[in-house]
């Protein structure tokens, strides 16, 4: 079974540009999460999809960030325009729905974003 995949693995862009990160969850996983780790700090929650619906987007920093999950499969996270403070590692995780007491989130390898 394929794990959670993320693309690209690295991205270097200039301030003001747009970047789109992609996450492919494990097949059949309804829950999809985005997290971010800024250098030296905690991994922080950004948002949570259940299928194509945003369940919780309380962690999104501002309206420069737009997440979508069309069709309830893969998800994209677009940053437009990117700022220096957006640099960090963006993680995606997925989990099956319906078994909260045993739910484990499976993480992707992350996308390392550097904004210059």
């Amino acid at each position, binding site marked *: 079974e394929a794990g959670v995949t993320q693309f690209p693995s690295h991205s270097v862009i200039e301030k003001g540009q747009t970047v789109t990160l992609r996450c492919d969850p494990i097949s059949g996983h309804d829950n999809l*999460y985005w997290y971010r780790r800024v250098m030296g*700090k*905690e991994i*922080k929650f950004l948002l949570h999809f259940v299928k194509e619906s945003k369940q919780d987007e309380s962690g999104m920093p501002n309206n420069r960030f737009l997440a979508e999950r069309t069709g309830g499969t893969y998800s994209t996270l677009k940053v437009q325009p990117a700022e220096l403070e957006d640099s960090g590692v963006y993680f995606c995780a997925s989990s099956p729905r319906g078994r*909260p*007491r045993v739910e484990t989130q499976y*993480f*992707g390898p992350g996308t390392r974003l550097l904004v210059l």
Partner: protein
Amino acid sequence: AQTVTQSQPEMSVQEAETVTLSCTYDTSESDYYLFWYKQPPSRQMILVIRQEAYKQQNATENRFSVNFQKAAKSFSLKISDSQLGDAAMYFCAYRRQNSGGSNYKLTFGKGTLLTVNP
């Protein structure tokens, strides 16, 4: 809001020895979950062990075990017979037990970088 604190940014251990990584957390809830995740260099994060707060017995997975002290809000990870492959960043994480809801976001600590010396 819940917080998770890992007070050891870095730790090192000799191969075959035992090491304990510390984690404390703050919550007003009585039912929740705690996790230790491991991220090896340039590889993805994987779950090492999980503990359900309503269970008094400490979780164990092979060489990995936890010391869960609910009253003290402490959740340390013990790695026995350390191996070179245990070298990684270790993250402690907390998750609420939402009854009736479906948001299971994780709250993480800053991580502890473990080095295993041969």
